[in-house]
């Protein structure tokens, strides 16, 4: 159904950031970009100390990385879109009213936590149906939900012995058993406000709108936010920047999605996957069958079956090239394979029949063995038990050359399953189909953030790994159906997760300089400062203007201080995608482990870095006192080290953090 749209709605749908703010941002973007290019080009052209290339080159590479990061940030901000008030929702209880399913996804969260969210979901104003998607299939959840009159959805039997695909699978399963035109997705800990649908459904008056994402905000976090849980910059200017390029993306919770868009995506992906599987099977069939023929050695019957299979594949190839429907091609293929099965089984049975005849001749009761034929034939021709299935090559082809995606629980998988974070991949594909998204920056749900360092690190690692899986599997820069702006916006998010490598350089270079006098930059002179200082200041100014009063320091600290997590995310996702190794993924636990001792072991690399920075300061102090350190280089690096230490100090606070309850107690 298309919704009624009036002039006011159209105005609100097209509303963005006030012109004056955009103008200021654009001026600063141009200045910061120019200063950045001016600095980094000079660094490459005139100031790399090639004598110490082994640190000089990594440093200039790291600086180039940061420049690209800053350019991508500026490019996003260029079109920042702060939407303000949303269009009114389609009137409830009227002909315009739309149907909405609210999905609460859970796996192992405590039952009271799930039910707290479920109760709030029931209380959402706009008419809707609430569902708990319990992937743990727990009796307690079912009982509690029943008491409230809420439906529980668990996996259908199709999922037994097939890949479960975690949360994406949970959502895909539920999408096929519900019927609402729109779906609000909530994590188990995200308690929705009653107006969440009234404030988001109006955006769907744009008939191409597929997704409205709202912020994830956490209520159990003290103002000092020692674990960096709130993401005011991301759930603010960064998503708003992406929104300006129609690239605001799904973050897994607190978002409303249009079912039609998801199902359309599911269908297109089904077609892509089946085509890919069939074409790959045909491409590789010749080699596969040839190898099987070699393995068969003297067995003439196996060889015959393989030759027949080869002919059937060849026929399928011709039919595909001719443009026949894949369903028909594969149907005829499967029939052909079945015919070989019957032939071979027939041969087996002929032999058996001879044996039986001999036995019967010995027996006094001629009827004793009749009837065995039919049973044996039925057994031998059933796909799984037939001798043809025993020829591995043929059964592999038979399962690849089909349209039922038998290896998956469902043929239609709307939520992407290529990544442990299904959300980003799904929205990228939706954008690829020409759908639109909106970021509505109003807090409409209150969540619970991890309360200890270990859980927090696990969660950040999972997000980063998921993003990197998408980077390696469906690189946004290669998606032809995305606009250049959309590609760069998705790429920008992925680019930021590579920061672990430059971070390593940013802490090593000053230590080497202070402790050993290794200087990676040839000229710490006026030339350097005249280029570096404007770059630094204009970048800070850009951040400050775009952030518009939101706190940014905590985020900046963690993007450097969690460098081991970012490095691990890149290496583990790489091994996962290209070498098929498991990620070592775990579901984030939202409950706190009480009474534990501070976990210094979790941050060993950071502690080593901090120790090295402190030692470097001491050593340079001595070197200056004995007159061994000359020039301005040591002083530049001392400032740099002090900055690094300030950044890393958050790690100490995070380890010592005892949760929000302890923080409140200290204050009172």
């Amino acid at each position, binding site marked *: 159904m298309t919704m009624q749209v009036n002039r006011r709605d159209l105005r609100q749908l097209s509303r963005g950031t006030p012109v004056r703010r955009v103008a200021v941002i654009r001026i600063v973007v141009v200045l910061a970009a120019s200063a950045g290019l001016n600095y980094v080009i000079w660094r490459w052209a005139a100031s790399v100390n090639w004598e110490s290339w082994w640190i000089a080159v990594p440093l200039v590479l790291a600086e180039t990385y940061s420049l690209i990061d800053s350019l991508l940030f500026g490019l996003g901000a260029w079109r920042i879109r702060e939407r303000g008030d949303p269009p009114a929702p389609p009137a409830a209880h009227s002909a315009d009213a739309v149907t909405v399913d609210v999905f609460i996804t859970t796996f192992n969260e405590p039952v009271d936590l799930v039910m707290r969210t479920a109760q709030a979901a029931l209380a959402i104003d706009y008419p809707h149906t609430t569902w708990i998607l319990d992937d743990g299939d727990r009796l307690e959840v079912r009982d509690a939900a029943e008491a409230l009159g809420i439906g529980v959805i668990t996996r259908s039997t199709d999922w037994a012995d097939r890949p479960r695909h975690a949360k994406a699978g949970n959502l895909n399963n539920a999408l*096929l058993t519900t*019927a609402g035109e729109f779906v609000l997705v909530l994590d188990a800990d995200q308690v929705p406000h009653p107006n969440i649908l009234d404030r988001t459904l109006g955006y769907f008056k744009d008939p191409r709108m597929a997704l409205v994402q709202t912020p994830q905000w956490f209520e159990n976090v003290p103002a000092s936010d020692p674990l960096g849980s709130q993401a005011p910059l991301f759930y603010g200017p960064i998503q708003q920047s992406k929104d300006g390029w129609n690239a605001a993306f799904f973050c897994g919770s607190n978002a409303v999605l249009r*079912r039609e868009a998801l199902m359309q995506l599911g*269908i297109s992906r089904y077609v892509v996957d089946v085509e890919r599987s069939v074409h790959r099977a045909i491409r590789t069939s010749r080699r596969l069958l040839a190898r099987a023929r070699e393995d068969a050695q003297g067995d003439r019957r196996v060889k015959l079956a393989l030759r027949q299979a080869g002919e059937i594949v060849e026929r399928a190839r011709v039919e595909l090239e001719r443009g026949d429907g*894949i369903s028909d091609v594969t149907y005829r293929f499967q029939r052909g394979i079945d015919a070989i099965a019957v032939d071979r089984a027939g041969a087996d049975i002929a032999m058996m029949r001879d044996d039986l005849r001999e036995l019967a001749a010995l027996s006094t009761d001629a009827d004793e063995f009749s009837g065995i034929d039919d049973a044996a034939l039925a057994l031998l021709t059933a796909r799984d038990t037939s001798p043809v299935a025993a020829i591995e090559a043929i059964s592999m082809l038979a399962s690849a050359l089909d349209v039922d995606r038998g290896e998956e629980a469902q043929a*239609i998988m709307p939520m992407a399953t290529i990544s442990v974070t299904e959300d980003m991949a799904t929205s990228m594909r939706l954008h690829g189909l020409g759908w639109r998204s909106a970021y509505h920056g109003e807090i409409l749900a209150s969540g619970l953030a991890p309360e200890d360092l270990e859980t927090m690190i696990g969660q950040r690692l999972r997000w980063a790994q998921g993003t990197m899986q998408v980077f390696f599997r469906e690189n946004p820069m290669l998606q032809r159906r995305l606009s250049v702006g959309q590609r760069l916006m998705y790429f920008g998010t992925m680019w930021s997760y590579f920061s672990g490598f430059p971070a390593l350089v940013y802490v090593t270079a000053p230590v080497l300089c202070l402790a050993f006098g290794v200087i990676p930059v040839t000229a710490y002179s006026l030339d350097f400062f005249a280029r570096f200082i404007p770059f630094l200041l204009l970048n800070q100014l850009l951040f400050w203007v775009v952030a518009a009063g939101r706190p940014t320091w905590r985020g900046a600290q963690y993007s450097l201080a969690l460098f081991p997590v970012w490095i691990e995310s890149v290496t583990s996702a790489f091994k996962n995608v290209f070498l098929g190794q498991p990620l070592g993924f775990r579901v984030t636990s939202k409950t706190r482990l009480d009474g534990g001792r501070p976990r210094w072991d979790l941050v060993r690399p950071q502690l080593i870095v901090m120790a090295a920075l402190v030692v470097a300061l001491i050593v340079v102090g001595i070197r200056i006192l004995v007159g061994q350190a000359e020039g301005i280089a040591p002083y530049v690096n001392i400032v740099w080290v002090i900055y690094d230490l300030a950044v890393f100090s958050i790690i100490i606070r995070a380890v010592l953090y005892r949760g929000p309850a302890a923080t409140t107690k200290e204050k009172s």
Partner: protein
Amino acid sequence: MTSIDVREADGGVVLAPSGRLTVVTAPTLRATVAERIAAGDRLIIVDLSVTEFVDSSGLGALVSCLKSARQSGGDLRLVAPTEQVAMVLRMTNLDRILQPRPSVDDALRG
């Protein structure tokens, strides 16, 4: 609303969903196909000549019916889609997999 007209044909069964085949009505189609397969039918022909509108959930139902038909050793074929339905099939590229036949007779022939 959709009603599904069911008629026997030589070698198969013809299902003709009339009206709108959408998220609301798709379960009826799935249930009807499941019933016919359980009753022993193997060739399921979906006649789309009286289907005015299909959405992606409707297409999803066709795919899931194809899957059940195949898994029981049978097949599912589409026949004579109306203009809107043909357009949706093209737009999602589903016609590359399920290529519709012009008539029920063509579909029965293979």
